[in-house]
């Protein structure tokens, strides 16, 4: 992906993820070590008043991590911060989006790009919102 002359106000190319599935939540529980059964066991989720299992908030943050590293590369994330504002359920399709807040040159080769980021569901509701800082090559031009 080549983005040239990033500047404040620019929107980034969205990342559309596959629908959330039970298998994904089981895999995420195992990979992350978060075995809270509200994410994998419907009886536990109902007893907790949630109706059905809900996705790990951290899974949506993981999607936003992918969104950032698709943009900047896995070694160039300085900061990733999110707030989990709404529950994510089975079958939900999340789309990660971002907007450039600022581009600060660090030296001749690199800039620090500050972004507003969020994941929204298929109804356009923002479920996870936050901010990020990534390093991009390209000095003051904000070019990668």
């Amino acid at each position, binding site marked *: 992906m080549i983005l040239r002359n990033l500047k404040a106000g620019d929107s980034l190319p969205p990342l559309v*993820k*596959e629908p959330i599935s039970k298998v*994904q939540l089981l*895999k*995420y529980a*195992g*990979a*992350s*070590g*978060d075995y*809270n*059964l*509200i994410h994998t066991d419907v009886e*536990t989720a109902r*007893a*907790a008043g949630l109706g059905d299992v809900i996705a*790990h*908030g*951290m*899974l949506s*943050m*993981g*999607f936003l*991590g*992918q969104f*950032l*590293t*698709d943009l900047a*590369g*896995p*070694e160039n*994330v*300085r*900061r*990733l*911060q*999110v*707030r*989990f504002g709404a529950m994510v359920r089975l079958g939900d399709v999340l789309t990660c989006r971002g907007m450039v807040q600022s581009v600060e040159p660090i030296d001749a080769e690199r800039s620090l790009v500050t972004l507003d980021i969020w994941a929204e569901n298929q109804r356009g509701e923002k479920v996870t919102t*936050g901010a990020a800082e990534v390093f991009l090559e390209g000095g003051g031009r904000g070019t990668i």
Partner: protein
Amino acid sequence: MPIDRSIIGATSEPVVFEVERGAIRKLAQAIGDPNPVYQAGEVAPPTFPTTFRLSIPRLKLDPNRILHGGEEYVYERPIRAGDRITCVRRVADVYVKEGRSGTLTFVVSETEGRDPEGKLVFRGKSTVIVR
């Protein structure tokens, strides 16, 4: 579940986590991120510190009553396979807010991860909401 503010400052034991290629690959696969760098298990995805599970003995929360409110990671450098990272987690704040469904207690904890020389690798901040 009332949580006393005297819990602020309580810490976990320091725990050394060895970053394994297979753990990197598994997390990326669970996220559905096909990046070849992760599939090779070289560099960890930015949410990898979530795998560093640290319990704070004095902080007891009922898993059926908690929701994850927010999370933050700030990196001094990326985490790579083979890293040995010593982590300590500490309760940084406890506060109460009135929500639509009653009183909610927010518990904020902060984690620091350091390399074997003591250099900071990352800082984490996690907010848990107790219903």
